[in-house]
């Protein structure tokens, strides 16, 4: 049985800034766009790989304090940067087979919710980095 339970281990850095202690969710998606190549004579649909398309979605607590979430992300809107995610904090610096580090280089940040305020709740935001080249380091 293969399961992964995340309690406090994963590590996240955006533009070389560690946001591990502000992050509650990280999803790294590696997509190979499906191009249909079904032709006459086929009885089932057939696809081939098109361009790769990468995405990293992070859920973060919002903080406007110095060196925190807002300061890290504000200047990145409309630009590209490097985002790293590993299943352990140690994996960010010293990846291994069981602690792979997924690095998205040239990741574009299209939008940043600059405020998400609700009475009596900690402010959180969800951001998505798109595009770039995904590499997986295991050593």
């Amino acid at each position, binding site marked *: 049985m293969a399961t992964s339970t995340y309690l406090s281990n994963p590590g996240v850095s955006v*533009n070389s*800034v*560690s946001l591990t202690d502000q992050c509650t969710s990280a999803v790294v998606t590696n997509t190979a766009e499906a191009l249909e190549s079904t032709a006459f004579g086929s009885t089932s649909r057939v696809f081939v790989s098109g361009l790769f398309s990468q995405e990293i979605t992070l859920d973060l607590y919002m903080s406007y304090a110095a*060196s925190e979430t807002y*300061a890290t992300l504000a200047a990145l809107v409309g630009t*590209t*940067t*490097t985002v790293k995610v590993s299943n352990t904090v140690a994996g960010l610096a010293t990846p291994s087979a069981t602690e792979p580090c997924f690095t998205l280089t040239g990741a574009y940040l299209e939008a940043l919710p600059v405020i998400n305020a609700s009475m009596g709740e900690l402010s959180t935001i969800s951001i998505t980095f798109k595009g770039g080249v995904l590499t997986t380091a295991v050593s």
Partner: protein
Amino acid sequence: MKYKIVSPRVGTPGDKFEPEAGVNVEALLSHGFIVEDTTPPKSAKTITNNPKD
């Protein structure tokens, strides 16, 4: 250009910062995570052959 780490979120403050590929250095500078290292390089020692009398 050389940079020095200011914020512990980037690394050990005071250490040299070497940006990885794709890192937006301007964003780090603009919010004070790093600063430009303006420490002048040490000049080479000059050895003079000027023996004292």
